[in-house]
């Protein structure tokens, strides 16, 4: 038995298919909350200077509830599927090394004006390229913000 070492050239077909699927499922636009750059120093780090954020549009995206049953006081969890091409655009625009760096910097996601925190990110791949990003979100509690 031998390993398959054949070269597979990258093709955006999976990414385009995922984008089409997201749009057909009612894909809409969400906002990734990114801190404005240039704010630093002790006052910012100890919570004196308020941080400002910019909203980066991500589209197409679909949003759904992860579980229907809820426990008292426990925030609901949601899943957001976002187009990889939208993420790649923002990674390029911000000159970041990867999508991981983008999500590490983000404070959360706004969906229809409501804030959600990012708990986990996964990215299914085809030919070594992510074609979709799945974000597990948690409703931001008022005291958490």
């Amino acid at each position, binding site marked *: 038995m031998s390993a398959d070492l054949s070269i597979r050239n990258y093709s955006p077909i999976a990414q385009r298919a995922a984008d089409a699927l997201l749009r057909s499922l009612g894909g809409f636009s969400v906002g990734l909350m990114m801190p404005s*750059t240039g704010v630093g120093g002790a006052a910012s780090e100890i919570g004196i200077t308020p941080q400002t954020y910019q909203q980066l549009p991500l589209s197409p995206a679909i949003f759904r509830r992860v579980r229907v049953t809820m426990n008292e006081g426990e925030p609901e969890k949601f899943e957001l599927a976002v187009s990889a091409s939208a993420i790649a655009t923002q990674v390029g625009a911000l000159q970041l090394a990867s999508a991981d*760096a983008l999500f590490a910097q983000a404070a959360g996601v706004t969906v229809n004006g409501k804030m959600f925190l990012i708990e986990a990110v996964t990215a299914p791949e085809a030919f070594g390229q992510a074609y979709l990003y799945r974000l597990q979100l948690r409703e931001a509690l008022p005291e958490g913000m």
Partner: protein
Amino acid sequence: MQNAKDTFYVALRNRLATVNPNRTMLLRGAQRPSILVEEAEAVVAMLPADTFVLRWTGLTTDTNLPLTLAKMECEMHYTTGGTAAAFGLDRGRALEEMDAEVIGLLTPRSTPKMDYATNPVTQLTTAVFWTAATFMPAATVRDRLTRYAKVAVFAYQEQGEL
């Protein structure tokens, strides 16, 4: 108490820049030493790796003195999965390195108290001082080693101080 907490954090941040200049992070668009105050940052699901996270917990006061003495409990949490170059096999060494840095950050065990809410920053008349770190047992969660060290931070409440 807030001035003491701010002073303690800034002192440790400045010392980290000297103890290990390579331990930096990009947070909220700014490059800074890898130490943060948990209550002054966004809520996250998981502790950031290779970063010192200060968590303020207990508070007691002694009012039987000319100035009220506040004792604040601070937990320094840190977690590491080692380096990607070593496939995480050096995570034990990385944790030990962070243990040593904690000792370095906390030495000497005092610093002049500052008021960072004023512009420019003003120095107050008393100092902030603290105990040696008490290291808790390391915990393993998947590929990461996590530990926290407890420190008791003391400060006198000066006249008109928050």
